[in-house]
């Protein structure tokens, strides 16, 4: 069944149901009202007659019954019966025998004189002190005759309401289908060829516009990712090219070489270049794995300052060899953090290696751990040339190595990996000016919020 028809039917059904509720309510109320009014009339009439008897005796009652019958409407039923049940006065052709009855208000079946069939009636039975029975009441059927008219009108109203609801449903469904159709058409064009298409907005700021805006935002993000992916594959291909062609050249030369010493050296170069290729590929894999949140289940509490101390000690001799001094002032107290110790060790070592590789000329490299209630900052500051403001974003991209003439094995992936590890911890990697030099900061929440997976 097409959605448009379903929406129309649903709207019609809803209109019908709500109207049914209103009509049911009206019907119930009028019915109750009619019954109550009948009851009042019956009790009133009986009270008048017994009062007349009490004050004026039998003669006055006879007179009153005559009056009642003379002026009353055709639904009125009155009868005075002797103790054996024979009618002395009144308009009852058939009445229940008093023996089987008790005093009080009740329903009964009565036939009036001059009428062909008995009717349902509400009556009051009173036993007079002289032993006679007074029956006084009204026929129900005739009394509630207007109910039939009411029921017919209500039924008609119900049908009209149902039809109107269905009509509204059709109009609504058309409207929704048209608005959704616009969005679907854009989606179609995007699927077909053109990612630059955007959903047109009506400007009304309604739900459809909000949906459109969200789809547009999603499309922006997808285009961004596509662009990033394109850049990534381009630079991956480019960066894999150089070690691959060096490897090929070395392998070729080794095959041709006659001197064993030369051959051995060339084979060593083959292995080194193969290793460089493998390292680039593993780091790329590592980045995508950590971005896919695979490491979350290995999160645990650990002391960040202890980790930083260990890495500072580990890299101190490396910095020393390059003529720089690596310093770490360990905070007096432990700095606990809930995270992936191994991955953060890798992130921090990338930052330290980066500082050693590009900032050693400045002489001093400082590692700092700044504890906080909510977040911890781990900083690596060098006094090297730094990165100009407008090129920092580029530095964080995969293969974003700024000096492309450099041929060492850095491959520009270190900062990108550190950033993706920071993201895994719901934190971020910041690059700032050290005036002069570069400060790289891992800003990490002490306990990352549990993200729904």
């Amino acid at each position: 069944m097409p959605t448009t028809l379903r929406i129309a039917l649903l709207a019609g059904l809803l209109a019908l149901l709500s109207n049914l509720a209103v009509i049911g309510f009206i019907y119930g109320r009028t019915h109750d009202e009619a019954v109550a009014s009948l009851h009042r009339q019956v009790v009133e009439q009986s009270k008048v007659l017994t009062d007349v008897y009490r004050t004026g005796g039998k003669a006055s009652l006879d007179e009153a019954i005559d009056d009642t019958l003379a002026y009353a409407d055709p639904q009125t039923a009155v009868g005075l019966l002797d103790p054996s049940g024979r009618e002395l006065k009144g308009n009852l052709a058939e009445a229940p025998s008093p023996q089987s009855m008790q005093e009080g208000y009740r329903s009964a079946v009565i036939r009036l004189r001059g009428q062909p069939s008995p009717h349902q009636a509400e009556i009051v039975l009173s036993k007079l002190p002289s032993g006679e029975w007074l029956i006084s009441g009204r026929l129900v059927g005739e009394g509630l005759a207007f109910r039939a008219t009411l029921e017919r009108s209500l039924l008609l109203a119900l049908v009209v309401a149902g039809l109107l609801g269905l009509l509204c449903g059709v109009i609504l469904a058309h409207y929704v289908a048209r608005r959704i159709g616009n969005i679907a058409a854009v989606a179609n064009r995007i699927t077909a060829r053109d990612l630059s298409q955007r959903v047109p907005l009506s400007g009304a700021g309604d739900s459809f516009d909000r949906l459109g805006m969200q789809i547009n935002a999603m499309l922006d993000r997808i285009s961004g990712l596509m662009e990033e992916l394109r850049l990534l594959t381009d630079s991956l291909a480019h960066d894999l090219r150089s070690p691959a062609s060096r490897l090929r050249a070395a392998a070729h030369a080794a095959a041709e070489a006659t001197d064993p010493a030369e051959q051995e050296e060339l084979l060593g170069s083959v292995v080194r270049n193969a290793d460089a290729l493998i390292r680039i590929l593993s780091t790329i894999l590592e980045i995508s794995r950590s971005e896919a949140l695979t490491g979350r289940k290995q999160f645990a509490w650990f002391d960040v300052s202890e980790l930083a101390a260990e890495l500072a000690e580990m890299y101190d001799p490396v910095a020393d060899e390059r003529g720089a001094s690596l310093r770490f002032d360990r905070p007096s107290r432990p700095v606990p953090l809930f995270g992936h110790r191994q991955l953060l060790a890798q992130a921090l070592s990338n930052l330290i290696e980066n500082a050693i590789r590009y900032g050693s000329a400045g002489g001093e490299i400082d590692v700092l751990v700044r504890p906080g209630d909510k977040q911890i900052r781990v900083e690596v500051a060098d006094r090297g040339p730094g990165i100009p403001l407008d090129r920092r974003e580029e530095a964080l991209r995969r293969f974003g190595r700024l000096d492309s003439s450099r041929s060492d094995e850095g491959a520009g992936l270190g900062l990108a990996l550190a950033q993706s590890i920071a993201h895994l911890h719901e934190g971020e990697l910041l690059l700032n000016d050290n005036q002069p030099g570069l400060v790289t900061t891992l800003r990490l929440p002490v306990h990352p919020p549990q993200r729904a997976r």
Partner: protein
Amino acid sequence: MGRKILLVEDDRETASYLAKGLTQEGHSVEQATNGQDGLFRATDGSFDLIILDRMLPVLDGISVLRALRAAHIETPVLILSALGSVGDRIEGLECGSDDYLVKPFSFAELLARVNALLRRREARVGPADHRLTVGDLEIDPLSRTVKRAGKKLELKPREYLLLEYFARNEGRVVTRTMLLEQVWDYHFDPGTNVIDVHVSRLRRKLDEGFEKPLLHTVRGAGYMLAA
């Protein structure tokens, strides 16, 4: 002395290359090409070492390992895997493997690890003499003191751990990755020559002024401590 090694690897080329190399080293190698067969052979517990590929047909390596450990078969297991991220390595180790080697690897790296694992098993079973000696080098793990030719060497804590690890693998090749994993407990590949720098510092303290060097570089593989 040859040992019994079970090799569970579905890639025939890799398997035959490894089996050939290990056999040349004097070990006897039995092969299985899927996880179920591997688990079946491993359950008799007669092997000295199991080399287990992580991605196997029928039953993957991690499941085989879990089943073995659940059955209280404590044969050392070396996992081979193309899944080389830090998270994958930790997961492999936490499942009860004794070592984890990422593909592609050199045969020298594999051999070094195989020997270290076999050696560890031997040490676990053999009598415990807590003093370690390599030539005129004497190491006391309890007091963490090191003497060479009777003269005390001043080592930093990490240098001591490095030397102790070398001494426990005396006469065997130890690779850079093994040092990073075993001495520092890090499971990533550093981008610098950080391990070499530490080893050369240790070597300066250990061998400088002595005629016969103890700490040797093994080209294309790593290092070895030997008298």
